[in-house]
């Protein structure tokens, strides 16, 4: 579903901070100092992640609300629910029969009729990327968009399926 979700990673770090504090208290004076350092480090990182995820959630919610003024997002979510649209969770990508939606922190919609070329790419902005692989979309207006960023060593099976589906719909919509 195309929705804004808050990251829960900060909860794990806060639990870890409490765990280190508990360990320090149980172990006594010898280990308390070291455990306090771990506890504070986890607490600080947890709070930073919480603040960043909260900020991203608000930003994404606002962007989705703006995109949904004509009911586009509701229509796509209904399509995903009834099976007429595909949602690739690991790629954060939704594909309907007329457009694709990138569901990252900066969500956007691309219509298939605007696409000139689609392929998998290891090169981003002219530089070879040793870590990630992308679906590169060349638009008819000359712009280049990268979606579905995945680690190069663990490319999910959905990646190839998504490229195939985009190519199929794009050629049907007169994209290329």
């Amino acid at each position, binding site marked *: 579903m195309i929705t804004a979700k808050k990251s829960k990673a900060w909860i794990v770090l806060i639990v870890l901070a409490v765990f280190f504090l508990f360990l320090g208290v149980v172990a006594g004076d010898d280990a308390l100092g070291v455990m306090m350092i771990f506890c504070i480090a986890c607490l600080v990182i947890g709070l930073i992640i919480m603040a960043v995820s909260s900020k991203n959630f608000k930003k994404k919610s606002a962007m989705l609300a703006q995109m949904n003024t004509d009911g586009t997002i509701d229509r796509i979510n209904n399509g995903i629910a009834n099976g007429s649209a595909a949602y690739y969770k690991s790629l954060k990508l939704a594909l309907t029969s007329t457009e694709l939606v990138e569901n990252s922190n900066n969500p956007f919609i691309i219509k298939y009729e605007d696409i000139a*070329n689609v*392929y*998998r*790419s*290891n*090169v981003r902005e002219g530089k*070879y990327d040793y870590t990630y692989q992308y679906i*590169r979309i060349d638009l008819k207006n000359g712009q280049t968009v990268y979606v579905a960023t995945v680690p190069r060593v663990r490319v999910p099976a959905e990646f190839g399926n998504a490229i195939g589906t985009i190519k199929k719909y794009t050629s049907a919509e007169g994209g290329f």
Partner: protein
Amino acid sequence: MVIVYGSKNSIKIKKNLGVNVCPNCGMNTEKVLAAEKQQFTVFYIPIFSHTLRKGLICPNCGMYKTLTNAEFKEIANN
């Protein structure tokens, strides 16, 4: 004592093979014969390197066509 170690990848281009149509991106680009190397570093200083793979790369999309050592040498020498 903290030891900072890691690895760094790099591509060494051996030869330009002229303009070809890439089967992945469909662009007319100059394909290159290259080897991808991985360097093991300690305190950001490369200690040793080993070849991860050798093959033909499209500079536009980065698609690799992996070659065997014999194929790589043959293309490099031609």
